[in-house]
């Protein structure tokens, strides 16, 4: 499921808001969450889970292209810890449904590069 499908699903479940308002709301919610983490904060959603930052200390690495050695800068990365209800519901669902391959590669694929060199 991609964001536009989530928006459609939410819009279909209710009648008092226009699709446009739902879209605006979902985008705002993601902004609030991103902003909180970008500012060094945490997010706690009961039943769903919590997002926090994990510290990554500097480490020795090398540039894979040139082979040159370097020390990465210390940084923070976002971390999600699923809540109890989400964990249980997902685990139970394993008995009924298979994990589906993602079907929208072409739409929103670029977003999660592996990165990892810290420069």
């Amino acid at each position: 499921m991609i964001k536009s499908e989530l928006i459609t699903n939410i819009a279909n479940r209710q009648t008092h808001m226009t699709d446009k308002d739902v879209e605006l709301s979902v985008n705002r919610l993601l902004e609030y969450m991103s902003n909180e983490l970008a500012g060094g904060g945490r997010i706690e959603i009961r039943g769903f889970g919590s997002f926090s930052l994990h510290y990554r200390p500097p480490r020795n690495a090398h540039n894979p292209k040139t082979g040159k050695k370097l020390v990465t800068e210390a940084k923070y990365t976002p971390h999600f810890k699923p809540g109890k209800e989400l964990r249980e519901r997902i685990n139970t669902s394993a008995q009924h449904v298979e994990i589906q391959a993602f079907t929208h590669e072409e739409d929103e694929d670029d977003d999660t590069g592996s990165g990892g060199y810290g420069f």
Partner: protein
Amino acid sequence: MALTKADMAENLSRELGLNKREAKDMVESFFWGIIESLEKGQPVRLSGFGNFELRDKNERPGRNPRTGEEIPISARRVVTFRPGQKLKSRVAQHEGSQTASSEEGRGE
């Protein structure tokens, strides 16, 4: 203080003029929609934020750290979150704060 559903609803209400009820429903529907998709075995990709993915884990040996007793960890399905490039770079730039340490978010 961590960001909560109540904070998110309040922000929506203030910024988009939704009434309290609508804002609260909107926040609930948002998380409900993500869970529902995952429960159907469908990963969720939210561009700019990140992806919620599913993985089936086989049973593996484990032990009770307190007693040292060996107990198998049963096969299970788990959710993982992979932050998107945009979120990762915004967070990486963050220069330390008292609320952000590797200890946060553990042991709860």
